[in-house]
C-alpha cells in the first residue's frame, strides 16, 4: 500500500514506535482525565452545594483521586457467597476494556510532525469509526448486566436490569442523532467528520441532533438525572453493590472514561473537533495548525465534563417510567422526523429545487403533524391517566418489610431460581438494622 500522511489510508503507515506511543499516550491521557475529573467533580459540586470539597491531599487537593485509588487498591476484595465467580470477575473487566478502546478513534488534532515523522494526532481511523464507539458502548452494557446478575443480590440484579434497558433505549436514539451528521459529512470516519466542520460546526447546523445527543449522552452515562441503575436511595449502589476493592475501582474507571469518551464524541461530531472556536480563527490564522488544536480540543472536552457536573449539581433524578417515555416516545420519533427532514432538504437542494419554499412548506407540514399528534395524544390519554402519586393498594400483612423500606426479599420466586444454602442462611432481616 502506498503511504500517505493524509486521509484514512495514512493511519496504516506509522512506524511501530509511533503506533505504540499513540496507544500509550491515549491510555495515560484517559487515566489522568479520570483522576482529574474526579477531583474537578468533587470540587465543583462542593462549590455548588456551598461546601469546600476535598482540599487536603496535595495542592488544592489535586492528589485526592490518587489517594482514593490507592485506598481502593488496598481494601479487602470481598466475594459474596453463592456468586458465579468467573462472571463476577469478568464483569468489571468487560466494563473497563471497551471504555478504553473507543477513545482510539478520537482525533486530537491535525497532522503534526513527531521526531521528523508526519502523522495525524489520532490513534487510528476507520471508514466506520463512529460505529466502533457505539459497538464498544454496547459491549460496556455487558459489564453492568453481568455484574448485576452474578452478584447474587436483588439490588444488583434490579440495577443491572434497569441499566441494560435504559442504555439500549438511549443508544438507539443516540445512533439516530448521528445519522444527520453522517449525511452531511458523507462519512462515518471521525477525521473526515472533523474535516467537514471547517466552516460551520454540525452542532449549529444540526441543532436538533445535537440536543438529542446531549440528552441521550446523559442516559448513556448512567448519571444524574438518569442514574436509576445506581439510584442510591432505592438500590444501595445498584449493579456494583457487592463489589469492592479493585473490581469496584474498575467500574469507577469505566464510568469516568465513558464520561470523557461521550464528551470527546460530542466535541468531534458536533463542536468541530479540534477546530478553533470561530472568533479565534478570524483574528489568528495559525490557530488550526501545529499543536494548538489539542488545546481547543481539551477546552471543549472539559466544557462538556463541566456541563455533566453542572447538571449533576442542579437536576433531580427522573422516575423510571418518565425515563423510558422520554427515550421511546419523544427522542426517537423526533430523531426520525428530523432525519427525514434533513434527507429531504439535502436531496432537494442537490436536485436544484427552491430551498426556501421547500423549507417553509416542509416546516408547516411537520409542525401541523407534530401539534396534531401531541393534541391527539393528550385527548386520547386524558381519560385514563393514572395518577403516579396515588398510594398503591398493598397487602400489608404479606409485605416482607412491614413498616420499613421496601426491601426486595432475597427469595423472590423469579430471582436466581433456588438459593444455595450458604447464601440463604446469612440473610439479614430488614427493618431491624
Amino acid at each position: 500500500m502506498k503511504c500517505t500522511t493524509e486521509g484514512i489510508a495514512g493511519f496504516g503507515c506509522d512506524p511501530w514506535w509511533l503506533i505504540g506511543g499513540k496507544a500509550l499516550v491515549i491510555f495515560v491521557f484517559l487515566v489522568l482525565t479520570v483522576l482529574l475529573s474526579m477531583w474537578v467533580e468533587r470540587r465543583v459540586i462542593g462549590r455548588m452545594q456551598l461546601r469546600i470539597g476535598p482540599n487536603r491531599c496535595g495542592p488544592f487537593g489535586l492528589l485526592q483521586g490518587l489517594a482514593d485509588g490507592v485506598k481502593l487498591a488496598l481494601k479487602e476484595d470481598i466475594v459474596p457467597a453463592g456468586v458465579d465467580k468467573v462472571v463476577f470477575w469478568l464483569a468489571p473487566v468487560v466494563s473497563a476494556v471497551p471504555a478504553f478502546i473507543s477513545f482510539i478513534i478520537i482525533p486530537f488534532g491535525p497532522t503534526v510532525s513527531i521526531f521528523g515523522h508526519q502523522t495525524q494526532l489520532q490513534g487510528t481511523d476507520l471508514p466506520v469509526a463512529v460505529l466502533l464507539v457505539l459497538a464498544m458502548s454496547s459491549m460496556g452494557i455487558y459489564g453492568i448486566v453481568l455484574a448485576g446478575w452474578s452478584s447474587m443480590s436483588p439490588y444488583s440484579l434490579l440495577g443491572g436490569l434497569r441499566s441494560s434497558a435504559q442504555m439500549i433505549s438511549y443508544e438507539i436514539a443516540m445512533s439516530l442523532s448521528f445519522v444527520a451528521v453522517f449525511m452531511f459529512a458523507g462519512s462515518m470516519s471521525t477525521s473526515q467528520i472533523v474535516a467537514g466542520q471547517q466552516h460551520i460546526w454540525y452542532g449549529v447546523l444540526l441543532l436538533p441532533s445535537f440536543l438529542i445527543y446531549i440528552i441521550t449522552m446523559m442516559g448513556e452515562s448512567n448519571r444524574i438525572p438518569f442514574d436509576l441503575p445506581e439510584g442510591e436511595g432505592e438500590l444501595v449502589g445498584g449493579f456494583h453493590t457487592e463489589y469492592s476493592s479493585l473490581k469496584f475501582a474498575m467500574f469507577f474507571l469505566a464510568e469516568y472514561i465513558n464520561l470523557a469518551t461521550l464528551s470527546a464524541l460530542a466535541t468531534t461530531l458536533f463542536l468541530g473537533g479540534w477546530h478553533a472556536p470561530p472568533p479565534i480563527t478570524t483574528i489568528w490564522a495559525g490557530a488550526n495548525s501545529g499543536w494548538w488544536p489539542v488545546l481547543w480540543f481539551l477546552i471543549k472536552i472539559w466544557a462538556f465534563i463541566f456541563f455533566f457536573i453542572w447538571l449533576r449539581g442542579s437536576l433531580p433524578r427522573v422516575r423510571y417510567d418518565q425515563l423510558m417515555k422520554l427515550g421511546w416516545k419523544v427522542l426517537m420519533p423526533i430523531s426520525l422526523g428530523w432525519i427525514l427532514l434533513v434527507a429531504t432538504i439535502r436531496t432537494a437542494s442537490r436536485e436544484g429545487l427552491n430551498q426556501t419554499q421547500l423549507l417553509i412548506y416542509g416546516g408547516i407540514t411537520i409542525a401541523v403533524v407534530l401539534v396534531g399528534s401531541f393534541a391527539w395524544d393528550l385527548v386520547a390519554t386524558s381519560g385514563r391517566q393514572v395518577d403516579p402519586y396515588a398510594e398503591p393498594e398493598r397487602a400489608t400483612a404479606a409485605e416482607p418489610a412491614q413498616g420499613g423500606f421496601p426491601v426486595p426479599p432475597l427469595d423472590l420466586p423469579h430471582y436466581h431460581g433456588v438459593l444455595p444454602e450458604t447464601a440463604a442462611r446469612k440473610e439479614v432481616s430488614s427493618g431491624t438494622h
Partner: protein
Amino acid sequence: MTTLDVVFVLLGVVAVGAAVLVVTTRQLVHAALWLVVSFGALAGGYLMLTAEFVAWVQVLIYVGAVVVLLLFGIMLTRAPIGRSADLDSGNRWAALAVALATAGVLVTVLVRGFRTAYAPLDVAGQGAAKPLGESVFRIWVLPFEVLSVLLLAALVGAIVLSRREI
C-alpha cells in the same frame, strides 16, 4: 496459507465451538454468554474479510442488542446461578438432524452460488458503508424489502401475542 488465513480459520473454529457450547452448557446465562463469543468471532471473521461496516454492525446489533435483550428476558423470568438439571430436551437428536440439514442446505447454496465469485480483499474502502449501501439498495433491494416486511410481521405478531384488548 498466510497469517490472515490462519486467523480466519481460528475465528471460524471459535465461532463454531462457542455455538456448540451454547447448546451443551448446563448453565442458562453462560449459554447466552457463549452466544456472545460466537457472534464476536463471526464479527472478527467479517473484519478479516475487510467488511468493516458489517463487522461493527454485527457487534452493535447482535452482540450489543439481541443478546443483551435475551439476557434481559432470562433475568426477568429465571436466571439461576449454577447448573440447571432441566435444560436437556428429549428432542435433541431431532434438533441435531434439523441443524445438520439446515447447515447442509446453506453450505450447498453458498458453494453453488458463489463458487468462483472471488472478491479482492486489498481494495481500499470497499468495506465502508457506501459500497454496501449501493449494492443493497440498488441490486438487492427486493430481498431487502421482503426482509423488512418479515420483520414487520414479527413485530405485529409480538404485539398481538402480548396484548389482549386488540
